[in-house]
């Protein structure tokens, strides 16, 4: 009857944390080295916790309120995507790729579709490329709204108004995408050689109307938190990612750009029609939590510029290669290919090995959050537990990508 009240046996991660405490004590670094009371506690945060973004489990070794060590345990959302790729045709797999980084579905589809197109030698149409850029950047704005909104919601649990405003405006973007693709989150929109649907009548005007409102909305968001002394105190100087960390751990995306590393795959490894568009790579210098938040806000403004240019330059023409429908069954020639793409969280790419059949032989994801999460132990140690929440929110993790 009381099974649920008993503490379960410690599993591997907790045993590792306890072992590390013992080793530190043996070396003389533990908190009872002075002969005082033993202070270190191993606490489990997650996999269900209000302030972790998804089912991430952190086994935290605490000394009072100070975090000594963090062991992230992942895999609670492992959905066997890489194995499923071997049993679905290339075309059947597109909806599954959507669900990797579910907050930024369009960008995930884009990386996969680009890889297969490169393997199979299909070139998308020019109008489709521009539509891809438009929807990709709209998704980037929506994804940053979720990222920054949930980050500020974590700092004081749903107490900030910012998350409500950001989700309100995200709904406008999802309306646009729903009118175009039919779905609010899992779009299944990209095809090999183009996109599935052309822009409906009046869509461009609605999009422009939304983009016109964006600067005012951005000012509204920033007015809510930028002058707040508590926000600044909790975010400035905390969780600094150095440039050596960026090189050592392969950190990409806004997390790297906040540390003055101008790594943006839209510029360093250009794809699609980005070479023809004029935008800046947003970087900041300190690499702390505040800068990561600011970089995402600045990127939203740059995305607005990109979409406006793309709407102006939108050419006429078909949105799919081929007569009426994109190829449903494709058999790329044997070979392998990796294409990385600038996802809102960093470099997201798929490595596909093909053996000439209808099914991929091996599909491997390069997920930005998986690589960014490796730095957690280093980043959180030495901070208070409340800072740990702020820092983990600023790294912007989506467990669907980490666990695949």
């Amino acid at each position, binding site marked *: 009857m009381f099974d649920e009240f008993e503490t379960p046996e410690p599993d591997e991660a907790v045993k590792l944390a306890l072992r590390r405490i013992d080793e530190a004590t043996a070396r003389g670094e533990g908190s009872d080295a002075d002969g005082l009371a033993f202070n270190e506690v191993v606490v489990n945060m997650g996999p269900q916790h209000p302030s972790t973004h998804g089912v991430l489990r952190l086994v935290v070794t605490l000394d009072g309120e100070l975090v000594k060590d963090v062991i992230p345990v992942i895999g609670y959302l492992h959905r066997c995507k890489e194995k499923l790729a071997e049993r679905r045709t290339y075309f059947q797999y597109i909806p599954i790729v959507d669900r990797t980084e579910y907050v930024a579905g369009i960008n995930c589809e884009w990386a996969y579709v680009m890889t297969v197109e490169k393997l199979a030698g299909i070139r998308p149409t020019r109008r489709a490329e521009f539509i891809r850029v438009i929807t990709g950047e709209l998704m980037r704005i929506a994804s940053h709204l979720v990222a920054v909104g949930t980050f500020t919601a974590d700092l004081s649990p749903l107490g900030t108004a910012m998350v409500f405003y950001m989700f309100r405006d995200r709904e406008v973007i999802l309306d646009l995408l729903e009118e175009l693709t039919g779905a609010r989150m899992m779009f299944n929109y990209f095809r090999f050689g183009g996109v599935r649907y052309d822009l409906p009548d009046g869509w461009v005007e609605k999009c422009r109307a939304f983009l016109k409102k964006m600067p005012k909305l951005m000012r509204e968001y920033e007015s809510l938190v930028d002058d707040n002394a508590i926000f600044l105190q909790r975010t400035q100087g905390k969780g600094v990612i150095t440039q050596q960390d960026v090189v050592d751990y392969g950190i990409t995306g806004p997390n790297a750009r906040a540390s003055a590393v101008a790594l943006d795959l839209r510029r360093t490894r250009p794809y699609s029609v980005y070479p023809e568009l004029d935008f800046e790579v947003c970087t900041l210098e300190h690499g702390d939590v505040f800068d990561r938040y600011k970089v995402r806000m600045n990127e939203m403004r740059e995305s607005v510029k990109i979409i406006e240019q793309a709407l102006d330059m939108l050419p006429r023409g078909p949105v799919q290669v081929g007569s009426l429908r994109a190829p449903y069954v494709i058999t790329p020639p044997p070979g392998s290919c990796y294409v990385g793409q600038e996802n809102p969280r960093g470099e997201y790419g798929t490595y596909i090995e093909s053996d000439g059949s209808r099914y991929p032989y091996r599909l491997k994801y390069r997920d930005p959050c998986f690589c960014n999460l490796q730095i957690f132990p280093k980043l959180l140690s030495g901070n208070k537990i409340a800072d740990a929440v702020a820092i983990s929110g600023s790294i912007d993790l989506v467990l669907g990508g980490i*666990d695949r």
Partner: protein
Amino acid sequence: MGLEIGTHPMSMDDIASLLAERFAAEFHHVRVQEPDTVVARCAREDLAAVARSLKEHPEVGYETLNWIAGVDHVKHFESVYHVYSWKTNTYLELHVEVPRATPEIDTVTGVWPAADWHERESFDMVGIVYTGHPDLRRILLKDDFVGHPLRKDYVDLAENHPHV
């Protein structure tokens, strides 16, 4: 300030011939995959030395590890390393063959710290053992999972499905 990208740009053919010359003994089949990747194969005995030299090369230092993939090519396994060079802004994809009977290979965590979790995932999914890894245990699957799912001969076992 600090980290610059593409400070020593070189053409892909130059990079490929530079690598083919420097690692003439270790690399086979060096080729260029457009637009910016050099693909090469290497034997597993040479991996440790090659990794160190690749990172510390003065002209094309491959300082960042992007990902490591384990692949099961029925007759053998393969560990694929994808590394990035900041100076030339190009990539190198290194394929290392691992025999199926003894799937062991040296770890590269001493060279690229990012390899930690990537090697754990490759071990978890395909079963390649990275000798010298500080903490080689399963990362995505539960600790008592039996088998390595991304192998081609993996069969779904009842022990892995207690909740059916």
